[in-house]
């Protein structure tokens, strides 16, 4: 596990390290170290293990988050709980006289406060997640699967699309209009890669993906099907409405005046769109029909004079 993601949280982690070290030093000065025979190893394993686990959680959480209010609350909460467990574990090794009230105090007071802070932090995290979810609109439907997200466009890939079409088709009954699927293919994308390199090609794909997201409704799903082909799943949409959206998408992209990163010159692109509405319960069949419709839209060039 690399610790690079922890940089924004340095100050909080440093504070935690200082406090735990202080308590260790104070315990060593004020208490009396136990002999080997006196140590209860089961307790050490249980309490120490819990503390170690908690620290791992904290590191995972911080690594996946930028700094900010929610991160601070969570660090404070987890830090206090950790401190309590730490102190609890220390007195397995060190005997304190009854007059050392602060040891018991450190064991019991930070725990409930820490738990309360974690709970409070979790609530805010949830609120924050709702905001982020809204930003992910169009990129995911009811299910989240980070392993199926394409690293270039940050859209989901075709395996996610397939599972979502299947989910849509399963819920279908007579009252609901079956979903339609658009296949959006960038014309001559190979040329962009050849002329400007794949880095530029990747950037262009990302921009086209973003543009597609801006041109769909709340409940639609945009995916990167493969290569330079995108798929747009339109739940509960008839063919006429889907055709209208296909036209809007292709208009929007033909108006894009994309600027290359190095020279800053304009690259204009157009797309061809294929369209199919679900007729059976087979997701693969729907994708195949949409792809065939796309091939026709491309002027049969992909199918050429095949055998």
């Amino acid at each position, binding site marked *: 596990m690399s610790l690079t993601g922890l940089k924004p949280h340095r100050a909080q982690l440093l504070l935690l390290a200082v406090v735990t070290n202080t308590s260790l030093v104070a315990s060593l000065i004020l208490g009396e170290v136990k002999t080997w025979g006196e140590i209860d190893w089961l307790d050490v394993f249980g309490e120490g293990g819990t503390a170690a686990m908690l620290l791992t959680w904290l590191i995972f959480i911080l690594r996946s988050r930028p700094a900010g209010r929610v991160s601070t609350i969570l660090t404070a909460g987890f830090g206090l709980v950790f401190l309590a467990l730490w102190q609890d574990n220390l007195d397995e090794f060190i005997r304190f006289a009854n007059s050392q009230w602060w040891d018991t105090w450190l064991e019991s007071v930070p725990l409930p406060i820490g738990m309360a802070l974690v709970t409070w932090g979790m609530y805010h995290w949830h609120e924050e997640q709702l905001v982020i979810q809204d930003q992910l609109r169009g990129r995911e439907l009811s299910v989240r699967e980070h392993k199926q997200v394409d690293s270039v466009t940050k859209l989901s890939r075709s395996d996610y699309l397939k599972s979502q079409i299947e989910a849509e088709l399963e819920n279908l009954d007579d009252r609901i209009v079956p979903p339609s699927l658009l296949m959006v293919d960038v014309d001559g994308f190979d040329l962009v890669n050849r002329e400007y390199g794949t880095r530029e090609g990747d950037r262009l794909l990302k921009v086209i993906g973003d543009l597609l997201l801006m041109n769909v409704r709340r409940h639609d799903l945009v995916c990167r099907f493969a290569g330079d082909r995108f798929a747009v799943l339109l739940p509960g949409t008839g063919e006429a409405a889907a055709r209208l959206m296909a036209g809007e998408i292709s208009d929007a992209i033909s108006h894009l005046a994309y600027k290359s990163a190095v020279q800053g010159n304009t690259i204009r692109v157009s797309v061809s769109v294929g369209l199919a509405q679900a007729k059976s319960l087979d997701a693969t069949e729907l994708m195949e029909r949409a792809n065939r419709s796309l091939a026709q839209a491309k002027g049969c060039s992909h*199918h050429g004079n095949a055998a």
Partner: protein
Amino acid sequence: MKSQEVLPGFYTAEDRVLASHHQVALLIELARSRHIPEDRLLRNTGLFPSDIRSANHKLSVSAFRRLITNVADMDRSSTLNLLWGSQLFPGHYGSPSTLLVNAGNLMEFLDTLVRFRFFLCPFMAPNLVKDDQWTYLYWIDAGGLGRAKPFVVTALMSGVSSASNWLAGRTLPWQIFLKHPQPKNSSEYSVAFGDRLRFSAGINLMRIESQLLFEPWGSVSELVRASALSESVELLDSAKPVYGLPELVYRVLLSNSSKFTSLQTVSDCLGMSPATLKRRLKECETSYQTIYDNARLHLSLYRFYVEGWSQDAVAKSLDCCNGANFRRMFKRWTGLTPSEYRSCFRLDLAR
């Protein structure tokens, strides 16, 4: 068996024969642009970043194989093979690249590719076969790619189809047959190659109608072409490239195809003992039996489809005791019987 003569040199898995700054550098550049860390990429390859920037460094096939394995392991999108391929040709490999970009038609393009393949595609050997109806381009392992073969052959096919489409100014109806089974991300393949695509085909082959070979491809400079040709020929003469051991064994087998040669004869030809040959081939992640089976499969496919022989005639020519035996062997090579294969090969892929 006659020929006992020892053939000229060959290279094995550990010989440094691949120019690191050409195709290999392209792949590394691409992997970097996909945020694959360089240390993970070059792990176990014995390559240093400075090697790729130097114009003289050469890479062994076994190091290349490990590099490909690293790329494939780290490539979350599993599309770097297709992307790398689409950049391979014409490439920047000196005069052979100039020659490629100035091809006046598909025939010239493919001829250049095959003739100067030691510079253009050193990892695998393209082989061109023509009949009246079809032109076939099939790929065989040159120096022992082993596990890396599916990655590389896909890249090369993607390269040929992408570059020929680019030069022709339209999408050419290439048909693609791949030996490896259908991968998980097959949608990437169908977007890259179109629908006319088959996996588990027993052979790595691309096919196009012969009538498209001489369709002119826009204006090319005859002068540039002529000078690039003479330069490339000079380059080839001075480089004196040799075959990789697996390819050499394959060619020895096919050159004696009237009666298939034994392991003993082949190793005599190469001036080594059968045990040494077997060991050397193992280092190339292949075996005599694999190459032997491939050679016989390729020959029987050639006789079926190009020369139009009957199944029995092919069976007899391959020293199989009988038709049933041949069918069993064929099924072992391709997973299909000859007649099943024939209906698959007819390719009703253009729905």
